[in-house]
């Protein structure tokens, strides 16, 4: 009978995945939010040859921030799946 707690073997891969995933979520929400707050969400129009008048967004667009946050959550999801997978493989390996 294997009674090893499933959380006892956190290695560099776990650290890297957690730091990257949580870091991306914080980057999209907090860091970009601070920059947006300090710089303001300014827009101006500019005439571009061949395109006409375009709106230039000088700060981060909500879509860009959302993609960064989503990427962070996806990294965390991939890490979670890998944890379960590694635990299943480890339990298969220890079974007689």
């Amino acid at each position, binding site marked *: *009978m*294997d*009674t*090893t*707690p*499933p959380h006892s073997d*956190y290695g560099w891969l776990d*650290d890297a995945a957690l*730091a990257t995933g949580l870091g991306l979520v914080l980057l*999209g*929400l907090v860091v970009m*939010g601070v920059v947006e707050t300090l710089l303001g969400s300014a827009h101006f129009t500019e005439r571009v040859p061949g395109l006409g008048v375009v709106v230039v967004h000088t700060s981060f667009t*909500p*879509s860009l*921030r*959302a*993609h960064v*946050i*989503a990427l962070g*959550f996806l990294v*965390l999801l991939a890490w*979670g799946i890998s*944890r*379960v997978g590694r*635990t*299943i493989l480890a*339990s298969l390996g220890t079974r007689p």
Partner: protein
Amino acid sequence: MRQQLQTTVLGREYTLELSGTLTGYWLVFLRLLVGWWFLHEGLNKYVAPGRFRAGWFLEKTGTVVSPVLNAFAGGATEAAIELVVPAGEVLIGLGLILGVLTRAAAFFGAFMLFFFYFGSEHWRRGLVNGELMGLVLFVTIVVFGAGRVWGVDSYLEATDLVRNRPWLRYLLG
């Protein structure tokens, strides 16, 4: 009872001091609160006049999750989503309230909230909104479990089936 929890975060060692009693009370409170939220949402879709429709959501364009949502729009897949969403909300709510398969229930709650949050088209309510808070609450329950406190998972975890398969604890409290 206070407990010292030694851990390493990015190579540095830390000691967390946790009150087991306070943690237990807070986790079961969180579980019941979030569980009732989803159970209520699911039941409401069954009792509210008019059938629950998912088309408006699945047909959204320009969101982070639009490519996935659009793939399910229309036909049998849309009908399946309209069945799965209310049923899923009820099951997630019951799972959290009763503490059955707590982590699995919270995972699927986080999965649904991921789509609700990233399904926003214009972010008119900002990037920090109710859906994000819901998503974070579900992830918190995935991390801490909480099904062992006043939950059926405490009995399930004592069975030989779970003792012999440690990975099953990822689905339980």
